[in-house]
Structure formats: structure tokens, C-alpha cells
């Protein structure tokens, strides 16, 4: 395993791998079915939403139940702007900035109370958001919702709508992922991690927990706005139903189950958000919520690091078995990847929200 990480840290291996992934992503929308393209695009939409939640919750350790509100707000701004005939770049900008400003204002107040105040305040966002969207019916279309087809494929591309939309998601979502990855691996990411680990220590190191919590929450709501734009581009319809409390909880469950404090975990979370309700609905629509709650609790009990930690958990289990088998095979107790650029993310994943206590009774 350690040899594998050694090889994968070689520059030319990384570049080739990146190029292969890029080519696959470029070709994929052209060759897969319409159904697959739509599902992939939806997964991308919610992967971005989960990524935003991860910034504030997974990396900074502040539970937020309001992320879906920013997705909904972004979708409404997009739909409204597109229907008013604004330039599409302007629409994208507005759909990111408006949720960001709202997020900043909420965070400025909520982060003043330490501890769990952000969770306690943000739970109100979806619950206030739904009646608010119905009330502002001039802009939002009220209960009927708002539809917009700005994201139909332009004639010059010769693409089908589903292909064009998937490309939109890949480009905009990919850029968001890249920027966020750089953010959480750099100096801000380290500040987030220390705020998460211990606020008092952070303060003593000159890192203001308040400022970084506000920053993380604002970044999360900006990313939520991006996700809202993509939501409107892919689904072409939004209504107050988009930002109900239930969806907010599902988003949070997706983040924990995918893997808190992990970029790959965010993608897995997006897949969970889109695919698992489809399966549970197929079993019995009345059981969807029950199964979701059970899955979330099971994850917290059995795999606190989320799906992304599954390979490592299996490897650890195998190693332990081998050692107790007494073959005398010598191995370093923790085959952590070589230090370097990768090490940063690994420790961040390890400190992911639910991890630390897996050995505790």
C-alpha cells in the first residue's frame, strides 16, 4: 500500500492520471445514455452542495442544517435571472453572491455563540425558507415553483440537452471542487482544522475562531449558491419543496456517510443523495426516511469516517488479522502515506467529524 502511494506521488504519474480522468470525463457524456447522463449531472449538483457543507462542517467542525437553503436560494436567483433575460455570466455571479451575502449575515450572528449555536440557528433556515419562498411569489412563483430552460443545448454544439448540461456540471462543478481543494489544503484549511480541534488553542495561536467560522460558513453558502445554479441548469425547475427540512437532513446525512472532511467523500455524498433515495423509494416510499435515519446511525457507529474511509478500515482490519495470526510479518503499526502534499489531506480526513472515537467504548 505504501508503495502504491509512493508511485502515485510521482509527478508524471499524477499528470497522466489527471489527463486520463479529464479525457474520460470529456468523452463520457457523449457515449452514455440519457438516463445515465442525467443521473451523473444530478450527482454533480449535490456533490457540490455536500462539498459546501463539508467546508463548514467537515473541515471546520460547525454543524450546519441550513446548507439546503443556500442551494434553494441559488436556484431561485438563477431561475429568476435567466427568465428576466440577464447575461448568463451575470446570473451565475448573482446566484453565488446572494446566498453568500445571506450566509455571511447569518454567520456573523450565529458564530458569536460558541459551541452548537450554529446548528441551533441554522435549523431555522429551511423551516423559515419554505414559507418565505411561498410568500415572495412575485419572484419565486410561490408554491407552483419556477422553471427555466436556459440550459438547453445551443444549436451550434450539436449536443443533446442532457450532454450539454452534464458538461456544464463538469466544468463549473469541477472548478468549484478544484478551488475548494486548494482552499482546504492551504493555510485556510489548517486554520479551519485547528478551530475544529480546539478553539481555545486556535485563539492562543492568533487564529480567531469567530473569523474563521464566519469565513467557513460564508464559503459554504457561496458553494451552496454554485450548487443552486447547477440545480437549475440540470433540473430546470425549483419550488419551495427544494429546501425543506427533510432535504436539509438528507444533505447532512450524505456528507457524514460520504466522508466528513474529504473531497472524495463529498463526491460519494452527492452520489448517496441522488441514488439512495431512488433505491429506498423502490423498496417502499413510506420507509425512505426510516432507512435514511438507520443508515446514518449505522455509519456513525460502524464507519465514523464515512464511505471514503472504507478502504483504510478494511486494510486496518486485514492487517490486524494478519498480525494476530502470528506469522511474524513485520509491518509498521500505521501505514500512513508518505508525508508530503498527500499527508495534509490524510490528516484532515482522519480528523473528519466522526472519526476520533472509534476505539472508545
Amino acid at each position, binding site marked *: 500500500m505504501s508503495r502504491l502511494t509512493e508511485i502515485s506521488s510521482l509527478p508524471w504519474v499524477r499528470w497522466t492520471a489527471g489527463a486520463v480522468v479529464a479525457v474520460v470525463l470529456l468523452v463520457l457524456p457523449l457515449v452514455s445514455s440519457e438516463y445515465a447522463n442525467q443521473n451523473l449531472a444530478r450527482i454533480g449538483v449535490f456533490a457540490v452542495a455536500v462539498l459546501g457543507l463539508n467546508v463548514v462542517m467537515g473541515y471546520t467542525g460547525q454543524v450546519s442544517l441550513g446548507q439546503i437553503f443556500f442551494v434553494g436560494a441559488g436556484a431561485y436567483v438563477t431561475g429568476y435571472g435567466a427568465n428576466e433575460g440577464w447575461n448568463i455570466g451575470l446570473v451565475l455571479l448573482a446566484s453565488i453572491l446572494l446566498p453568500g451575502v445571506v450566509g455571511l449575515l447569518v454567520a456573523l450572528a450565529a458564530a458569536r455563540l460558541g459551541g452548537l449555536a450554529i446548528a*441551533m440557528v441554522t435549523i431555522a433556515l429551511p423551516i423559515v425558507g419554505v414559507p418565505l419562498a411561498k410568500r415572495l411569489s412575485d419572484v419565486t412563483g410561490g408554491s407552483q415553483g419556477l422553471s427555466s430552460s436556459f440550459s438547453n443545448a445551443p444549436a451550434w454544439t450539436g449536443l443533446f440537452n442532457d450532454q450539454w448540461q452534464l458538461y456544464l456540471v463538469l466544468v463549473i462543478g469541477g472548478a468549484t471542487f478544484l478551488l475548494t481543494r486548494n482552499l482546504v489544503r492551504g493555510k485556510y484549511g489548517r486554520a479551519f482544522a485547528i478551530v475544529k480541534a*480546539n478553539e481555545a488553542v486556535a485563539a492562543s495561536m492568533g487564529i480567531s475562531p469567530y473569523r474563521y467560522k464566519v469565513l467557513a460558513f460564508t464559503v459554504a453558502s457561496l458553494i451552496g449558491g454554485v450548487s443552486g445554479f447547477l440545480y437549475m441548469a440540470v433540473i430546470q425547475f425549483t419550488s419551495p419543496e427544494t429546501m425543506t427540512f427533510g432535504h436539509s437532513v438528507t444533505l*447532512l446525512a450524505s456528507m457524514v456517510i460520504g466522508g466528513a472532511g474529504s473531497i472524495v467523500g463529498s463526491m460519494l455524498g452527492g452520489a448517496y443523495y441522488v441514488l439512495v433515495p431512488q433505491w429506498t423509494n423502490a423498496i417502499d416510499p413510506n420507509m425512505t426516511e426510516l432507512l435514511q435515519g438507520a443508515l446514518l446511525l449505522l455509519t456513525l457507529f460502524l464507519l465514523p469516517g464515512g464511505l471514503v474511509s472504507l478502504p483504510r478500515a478494511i486494510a486496518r482490519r486485514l492487517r490486524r488479522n494478519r498480525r494476530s495470526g502470528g506469522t511474524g510479518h513485520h509491518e509498521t503499526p500505521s501505514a500512513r502515506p508518505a508525508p508530503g502534499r498527500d499527508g495534509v489531506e490524510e490528516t484532515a480526513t482522519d480528523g473528519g467529524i466522526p472519526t476520533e472515537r472509534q476505539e472508545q467504548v
Partner: protein
Amino acid sequence: VGQFIQLVVDGLANGSIYAVLALAIVLVNQATGLVNFAQGGMAVLSTYAAWRLTEQGVPLVVAILVSVVVSFVIGGLIERFVMRRFERGDPDTAVVVTIGLLTLITGLCGWLWSYNNQQFPSLFSLDTVSLFGAAVSVRSIGTFVVVVAIMLLVQALFRGTKFGLALRAVAINPESAAFSGLPVGRLLMAGWGLAAALGAVAGALVAPSLTLTPGMMNSALVYALAAVILGGLSSPIGVVVAACLIGVLENLAAVYVPFIGYDLRVAVPFILVFVVLVVRPQGLFGRKVVVRV
């Protein structure tokens, strides 16, 4: 003026129900340092239990009392078998666990009894009586009186009995409590049980007017959490006052502020919290907490 008095009394009745839920949250928080987002969901489960019993022909009062006892047991079991693992760890993880519990319990109610609205019989008649020239519903007055009685009872339990003293000891310092021979684990279970029992009462009181659905307590949870923030986590009295204040203000705002109206009144506690957090972040009655590294 008649309408005003009516609104205030109805608001106090609603507020007192939020206060019960908020007290349950404070109780758990004092004992274990975490905020139980499933408190409302657990209350809904208790209310469904009471509703099932009344459907079988059990008298309402008996059904509610049985559901309170059952809730006490379930609350204790949840603490022992779900929360215990997460209590000494990171509070954020524990919060996620309670959110998982909320989803699980809501889903369980929806699966067992469908997501349709069920009629829950009211403890009090729907008649109105004249009070200072205003028509006030008996239900509002009855609810308020019941809640005040319960609070006095809880207060008496905590201040006047050995059991209450032990609970407070565990809340203040579990390690020292354990050294003095108190059964900390069982006391924590009792604390969760008491909170669940309080929630059961709140559910039974609020169900007749909201009608029983799996998500019935979601907005009540928002009110209760707002009351907890406003009152300060460390101050039960502050929380009760804040909850009543929220109940009254949201009723008044619904009628006198045209933009808010009945559909947006859930925003009132949110706005209040906003203002208070900016002006006085430790809550109206809370103390500043000093953290040592």
C-alpha cells in the same frame, strides 16, 4: 383590546408548550453537554403512542400518563444504547447522532402510522370564557396551567429530593459524582428519561391544535431551540421566560405585522435570536462561559 388579550393568552399557551420542550433540551444539555435535536421527534413518538391507546378506547388522561411513562423508559434506553458511546467525545458528532435519531424516529412514525394527519383528542374543551372582556379559549388556559404545574413539579424534584440532588451533581461534574459513589450511568439515563417524559407532555398538549403528523414538532423544535439560545443554556428560568416571550410575540406579529402573517410567523424567533446574538451573545439570562485549555 379584546383581540390583544386573546392573542397574548393564546401566545402564552403556545409559548408554554415550547417552554416544556426547551426545558427538556436544557435538562439533557446540563447533564451531557449536548443538544438533543431528536427531542421533538421523541415527543412525536410518545404522542403517537398515546393516540394509539385512545384509538383502543383508553381514556385520554390514562393514555397520556402511560405514554409519559413509556417515554421515560425509551429516553433512558436511547441514552444507554445510542448516546452513551458519543457523550464524552466531540459534541458535534453527538449532535449529528441526534439528527440521525430524529430522522429515524420520524421515519418510524411515518412508516407505522402513515404521513397523514391524525386527529388527536384535546384534554380541554374548545369553549371560550370571558376574561377582562376578551373571549379566551379554555384550552389555552388549561395548557398554561398544566405547564406551570409541571414546571413546579420539576423544580421540586431538582431542589427538594435526593434524586434531584444526584442529577444536579452529575450535571455539574460527572467525574466527582462518580467518585462520591453516584451511579452516573443510571442517572444519565434518568435525565434522558425525564426529558423524554417532558417531551411527551408537550406533544400531547400541542397535538390537538396542530393535528398529529410525524413532522409535527419540527417547528416547535425551532421555537424551543430559539428559546434555549435566548434564555441561555444554563438558565432554565430564562429559557421558560424566553419561550413564553416567543409565543406571545409570534402571535402578535402574525396579526399586527402584515408582511409576517400566519405563514411566516416561524421567522419571529429567528429574528429575535438574530438581534439578541448581536447585542448580547450569552443569551438574556445566560452566563459567560470561560474555557480552560
